[in-house]
């Protein structure tokens, strides 16, 4: 019994760590999909790029870890502005199909570019010494880096939620998600709002990719391999919602870990089955706006 309780703690811990990373990466996708109605399958590209930026900054230029994280955020956010203005913005009013195609195309290109620049090998992650080792909690050892992950992501989530709930920008975003035409009518510059939000979402994805490099390996095929997971987080959580993907990401993180721990012979079967069940029960996701 005690054994079971302690494995429960471990599963919950690893599941939360994984779920937090999924959330930090996917929340931007949720907001941009809700806000702009844009089916951005290429979101994983930003996460991967964030991972590469951080890892190469650390290994090639000896940039300290915290600075490398910031660098990943800033560079990817900046790059995403260029992409948004150049490509995405032209397809806001186009159909889902065009958006799907454009972003699949971007994935293909990013995968090839990453191979060109970094080769196919998975990038080694060399953590700073203060984040290595184990961290004792409730009489069990936990990997220190994952404890840091959970703590850091929690702070990030808190800041993000505060930002969206309490700032002027957040109010505008919420208004525009609710009703774009109305937001435009009351004088919100939606085009600027989209760009800023998109950049922030991409930056967060980069941060998530960098932070999670230890859990979700950074390699060229990253955007394809994890696409389904990110999409599940958004679809199950509900597009445009902040809380929904959070719940969904934790659910997926924990249940994935639990399946691996207790029922490894079933693989990812349960995750997909649960996704289908939830979407049939609530087509707009757990916290999504019911469609008209």
């Amino acid at each position, binding site marked *: 019994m005690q054994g079971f309780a302690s494995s429960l703690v471990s599963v919950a811990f690893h599941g939360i760590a994984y779920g937090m990373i999924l959330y930090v990466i996917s929340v931007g996708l949720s907001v941009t999909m809700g806000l702009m109605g844009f089916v951005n399958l290429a979101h994983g590209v930003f996460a991967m790029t964030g991972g590469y930026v951080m890892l190469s900054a650390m290994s090639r230029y000896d940039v300290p870890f915290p600075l490398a994280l910031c660098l990943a955020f800033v560079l990817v956010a900046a790059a995403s502005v260029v992409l948004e203005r150049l490509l995405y913005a032209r397809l806001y009013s186009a159909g889902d*199909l065009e958006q799907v195609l454009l972003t699949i195309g971007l994935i293909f290109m990013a995968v090839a570019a990453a191979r060109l620049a970094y080769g196919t090998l998975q990038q080694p992650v060399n953590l700073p010494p203060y984040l290595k080792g184990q961290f004792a909690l409730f009489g069990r050892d936990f990997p220190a880096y994952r404890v840091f992950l959970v703590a850091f992501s929690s702070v990030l989530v808190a800041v993000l939620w505060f930002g969206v709930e309490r700032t002027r920008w957040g109010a505008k975003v919420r208004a525009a998600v609710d009703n774009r035409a109305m937001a435009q009518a009351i004088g919100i510059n939606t085009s600027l709002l989209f760009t800023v939000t998109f950049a922030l979402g991409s930056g967060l994805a980069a941060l998530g990719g960098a932070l999670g490099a230890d859990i979700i390996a950074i390699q060229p095929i990253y955007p394809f391999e994890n696409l*389904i997971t990110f999409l599940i987080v958004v679809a199950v959580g509900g597009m445009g919602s902040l809380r929904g993907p959070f719940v969904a990401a934790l659910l997926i993180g924990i249940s994935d870990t639990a399946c691996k721990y207790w029922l490894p012979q079933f693989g990812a079967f349960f995750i997909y089955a649960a996704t289908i069940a939830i*979407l049939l029960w609530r087509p*707009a996701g757990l916290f999504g706006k019911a469609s008209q």
Partner: protein
Amino acid sequence: MTGPAHTGSYLSDPRVRPMEWLPWVLALVCYFAAPTYLPLGSYILIMILFALSLDLILGYAGIITLGHAAYFGFGAYVAAILAVRVTADPLIGIAVAGISAGLLGWLTGLVILRMRGLTLLMLTLAITSICYEIANKATALTGGADGLGGFNMKPILGLFKFDLFNKTGYLYCLLFLFVAWWLVRRIIYSPFGASLTGIRENVARMHALGSPVYQRLVAVYTISAALAGVAGGLLTHTTEFVGLKVLSFDLSGDLLVMLILGGVGRIYGAFVGPVVYLLAQDSLAKQFPEYWYFGIGLMLVLVVMFARGGILGIVDRLLLRIRRGNT
């Protein structure tokens, strides 16, 4: 007036135009002129059939799916398991593959086709992923990640043996493609086809007309799944092997790319796309296997930004310009 694109319309002339025989003539010419290309040729024919099945639901009924490989793969595995365990007769195999994929399409269609947009996209993805996981884990039945092989197909009708050069296989695939083409063409020109176009164009209005939208979608989805299953069965028969790739998201993605490249919702886009894509892959992937991906990605972006009708769309526009220039 109707354009060169084949749309379901009460005005369009349903007779087969001379140009529409061109693909078949070319296919036969290839059979004699390029006998060493027949393995690739058979694969192209199979992908054309698969793309045609996707065009029916994506191009005509407007269902965006990233999971059509589920039906293709299901057909492929059914054909393989049947050959290993029951009978290696190819025609029975194709029939069973098509019917069972159709059944799967019908069942899943009943469940998912009430949804739209991202939710539908996700459901199609999740269904393929589940099929993939099952095939991966049911090792005893499917061979898991190692694939399923070790069977030899019997000669077709006891007469035509599958050979190393794939001559039989090529004609076998061509025959089924022809039948499927005829069927799809009929459907598209029928009132049913017209109502599918209506659903794609304006689903709210179709509801207001009292059209049984959901039932229509389930019906076309079932037909499309059955065709995809036939394509999968053909792949199993011509390669006498089936692996997990046939159920993968990658395959659905590649298929989508091929169809888009050719042109959506115009029947022959499903012919042009796979030919161009697979021939390009065949030559480029040989010379630059590592960077083939980049070109495909760039092409997709360019098609979306500048050439929305795909290759056939570009041809249309060129023809239009030439005609205008003449008058």
